[in-house]
């Protein structure tokens, strides 16, 4: 599904990631951890082709990213839902329009009942008409999850999804992502919150990847 073969990424003369080789299998659940600035966000951006590797091969859905045209990259991103810590919305559009944006840009439509179900699932059933600036941090994160899953992607990448919310909301967001994994979605969550990872371990068979010295390793049981 997503494969890295000996990938490196350099920026401004310095190497952020080096010799990264791994595969995210369909239906798997991974955490990616490491200190701030270690390269977690860079790794995620390589996963949805916002960045291209400076060495090695990144393969998305059996196609090497360098061989993808700009349109191919857009189509590939429709198979990958992304949730950012500082999630961005179109502030002039109501929440419902923002959540359905992935369908809109691919010239597809969602039924009102499906949208209502989805917003209800993330706990935003009463906020369809709200503008994004009026949402709290937790509401924005849940809206981002709704936007990421509405197009039924194969993979969901979450970059510090609990960074701006309290612990209770963090667990709620984690539960949503675990539920999505049970529906067959491949999940990768980048986080430095080890408590969140420990909480997840009781709910799902998650593998933990750790970035250390520019390389990604499978973390031990100490987590």
């Amino acid at each position, binding site marked *: 599904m997503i494969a890295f073969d000996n990938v490196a990424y350099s920026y401004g003369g310095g190497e952020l990631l080096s010799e990264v080789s791994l595969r995210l299998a369909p239906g798997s659940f991974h955490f990616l951890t490491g200190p701030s600035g270690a390269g977690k966000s860079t790794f995620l951006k390589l996963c949805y082709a916002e960045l291209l590797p400076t060495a090695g091969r990144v393969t998305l859905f059996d196609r090497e990213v360098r061989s993808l045209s*700009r*349109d191919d990259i*857009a*189509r590939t*991103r429709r198979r990958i839902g992304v949730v950012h810590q500082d999630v*961005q919305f179109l502030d*002039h559009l109501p929440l419902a329009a923002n959540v359905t*944006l992935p369908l*809109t*840009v691919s010239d597809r439509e969602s039924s009102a009942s499906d949208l209502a179900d989805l917003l209800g699932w993330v706990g935003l059933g009463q906020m369809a008409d709200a503008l994004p600036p009026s949402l709290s941090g937790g509401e924005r994160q849940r809206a981002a999850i709704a936007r990421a899953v509405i197009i039924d992607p194969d993979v969901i990448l979450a970059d510090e999804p609990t960074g701006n919310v309290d612990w209770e909301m963090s667990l709620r967001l984690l539960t949503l992502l675990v539920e999505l994994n049970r529906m067959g979605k491949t999940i990768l969550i980048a986080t430095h919150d080890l408590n969140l990872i420990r909480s997840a371990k009781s709910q799902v068979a998650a593998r933990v990847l750790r970035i250390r010295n520019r390389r990604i390793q499978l973390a031990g049981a100490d987590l």
Partner: protein
Amino acid sequence: MRDRVVPPSGPTAWLTTFTAATMAFLAVFALALALASGRLADRWSEGLANSATIRISAPADQMERQTQVVLELLSTTPGVASARALTDDEQRRLLEPWFGPDLPISALPIPRLVEIIEASPGYDGEGLRQRLAAEAPGAILDDHTRWRRPLTVAAERLRFLGLVSILLIIGAMAAMVTLAANAALATNAQVIKVLRLVGARDSYIARAFVRRFTLRALGGAAIGTILGMLAVLALPSADAAGGFLTGLGFQGAGWLLPLLLPPLAAVIAFAATRFAAFRKLRELT
């Protein structure tokens, strides 16, 4: 929905509409100038090409006889449809702009003028000059070529300038729309980032901007065209002004030509915004 993904307002909206309106207003005048110049050139060219003048300079006691000789000669010249000597009143009216009314024309040694209307095909000018030299030495043929040509050339150049002005206006509008589109794309970089994240293709993003700028240009140009046509309509009429300005405006089907300006502005805005959008989107990667 595609239009709505771009925030609805901003300075570029007003700028594009205003620019399109202004350019269309100016283009209406340039078009009127080009059409009027064309008509003027045709009128001068055709009007003067079919006529000529014979100027008879002779002592007063020989003037009538030489005039008679010239008229008889012309009546037997192939290619001359008609010929007549101008009356004293007609000659007085011709001189009136320079010498004022009540000119004592009979007391002045003014040449007699004979007007020739040319048939088709025309007469042999060189042959006629030689016959006049032989039979009426004081008669000189003036076929108007000498002063018809610079007038026609001037009118043709005026038409050319009008058309060049239209092209410059089109170019300026394309440049302004491109700048406005670039500004809008730069202002909405965050919107573009979000759209890309959720899988929007460049063509989708570009269309959202292109459609908006095209409609703004169409609306602005429609306003400018209507105002321009009203302004042309309000110009002094032929009877009131006279001279060159009599023809400045549209005639008949010519009034339909300015109506092409709004769709033309829309096409220009479409092309300029599309070009700017794709270039900017590649830069924003």
